[in-house]
């Protein structure tokens, strides 16, 4: 494959990701009932610094693996205070302020539902454009120290032999939240883009 062809496919992938992020932004606005701005950022060491700055606090990392005809994963990352603000804005008071096991479960499940919907928004963009069947698996949630987040993401990128990774920050000024959204794809994505371009 020539370098120029590969470049074309990477550019096409970037356009699909942009389209997917736009859909995810709309979904997030609908769930949270607040305006959301999206900031696409280049992959570098700076992007996750905000989480390191919150000191020893944990971040909530939701991982969704792709299933079907597309391989990869996405990660939706909330700082601790983001989660509290979202819960207070979107959940009934007895749940958002509750400390019972049921309330805690409901908060976790709400985060998973947000992740599920945002992941599906991006996947829909790819699946429709590439005419494939793909979907996100049931998301998993882990809480990890903010200081280890960068290392975690790096290891995921290496583990998945990723060729494309993309990142965005959703800014919700009214709620003062800034969750990160990271996508990694394996190189078969480029093959699928090539196939659809050739047909």
């Amino acid at each position, binding site marked *: 494959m020539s370098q120029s062809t590969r470049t074309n496919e990477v550019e096409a992938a970037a356009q699909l990701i942009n389209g997917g992020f736009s859909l995810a932004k709309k979904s997030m606005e*609908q769930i949270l009932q607040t305006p959301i701005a999206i900031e696409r950022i280049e992959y570098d060491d700076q992007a996750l610094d905000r989480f390191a700055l919150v000191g020893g606090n944990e971040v909530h990392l939701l991982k969704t693996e792709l299933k079907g005809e597309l391989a990869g994963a996405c990660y939706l990352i909330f700082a601790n205070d983001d989660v509290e603000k979202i819960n207070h804005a979107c959940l009934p008071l007895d749940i958002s302020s509750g400390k019972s096991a049921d309330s805690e479960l409901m908060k976790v499940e709400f985060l998973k539902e947000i992740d599920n919907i945002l992941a599906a928004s991006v996947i*829909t963009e790819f699946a*429709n454009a590439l005419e494939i069947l793909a979907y996100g698996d049931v998301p998993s949630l882990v809480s990890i120290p903010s200081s280890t987040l960068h290392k975690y993401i790096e290891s995921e990128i290496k583990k998945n032999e990723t060729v494309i990774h993309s990142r965005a920050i959703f800014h919700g000024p009214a709620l003062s939240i800034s969750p990160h959204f990271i996508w990694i794809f394996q190189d078969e994505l480029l093959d699928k883009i090539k196939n659809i371009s050739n047909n």
Partner: protein
Amino acid sequence: MKKKILVVDDTIFMRAMIKDTLTERGFEVVGEAANGESAIDLAHSLKPDLITLDNVLPDMLGLEVLTILSKSNLDCKVLMISAVGQDSMKRKVMELGALAYIVKPFNTDQLLDEVNRAFAENAA
């Protein structure tokens, strides 16, 4: 007689939201399932008039649940409610006889419109 509805979704948050919306409007949520196997079992034992079915479940796709139910002799309508919004998936689900495909996030009016339409068609 209240219409009986089975709610299937892997998250308790979504099940509670759907259940609350429907019960407030006079429908009877007779059961809840968090996975496909449980959904199929409850569909047979509870014989609901309608099932709200999530598409991505921990053990199988809602599409597979729908395929199994469509081959059974159950007389219930299925309303797919899923974050998976791709056209090919929607087509397959509708071909299998689902009443409608609601893409998350949705508002409660959308849900109630489709549920009311299901039972209006039943009555016609």
